[in-house]
């Protein structure tokens, strides 16, 4: 029998995978995918709570998060494009001019 705990555990695991990915991956595009994964893990949490509580707020929040995630992804892609045009790389380790 699936309970709310299963969904919460799944979303927690997805969220942690995302965090670890952001912290360990070097490719900006992969990092963006990990951030997307984190946001979707949050969406799953919202939806399972909304279903469990029988409340619509969680659903509304998920719509907002989806729209924001899209805007973020678009701006992120634009930033990566600008980076690539200047530096011919999308590796965050090689982006390190700003050290004192």
């Amino acid at each position, binding site marked *: 029998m699936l309970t709310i705990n299963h969904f919460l555990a799944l979303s927690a695991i997805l969220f942690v995978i995302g965090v670890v990915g952001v912290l360990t991956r070097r490719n900006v595009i992969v990092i963006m995918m990990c951030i997307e994964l984190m946001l979707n893990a949050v969406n799953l949490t919202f939806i399972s709570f909304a279903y469990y509580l029988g409340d619509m707020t969680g659903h509304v929040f998920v*719509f907002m998060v*989806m*729209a924001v995630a*899209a*805007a973020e*992804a*678009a701006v992120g*892609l*634009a930033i990566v*494009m600008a980076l*690539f*045009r200047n530096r011919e790389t999308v590796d965050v380790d090689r982006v390190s001019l700003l050290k004192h």
Partner: protein
Amino acid sequence: MGAVAVGIAGAMLMLSEFLGPKHFFREKMEPFECGENQIVSPKQRYSVRFYLIAMFFIIFDIEAVFLFPWAVIFQQLGMFGFIEMMIFILLLGVGLIYVWKKGALEWE
């Protein structure tokens, strides 16, 4: 019962993996392109234009997420909902005009 079933299925998969004959040759390792010989290498770079289109697609596509629930209860929302959504679409239109005038939609 379930364990036995999983065990047997797993054992069969494993055995075929270990015992089955394997031949690797160049053609087999190539990406499958309808059985034809490869024309271009799949490892080439995409044009940066695709990224631009992808960005616009993400933005304009996701706005539909707000249109579907609105459409479902359009009757109950009445005039107020209609006006609100028209304002929303108008703002999207402003974005489209901006992108258009900037020439970001031209392929060449």
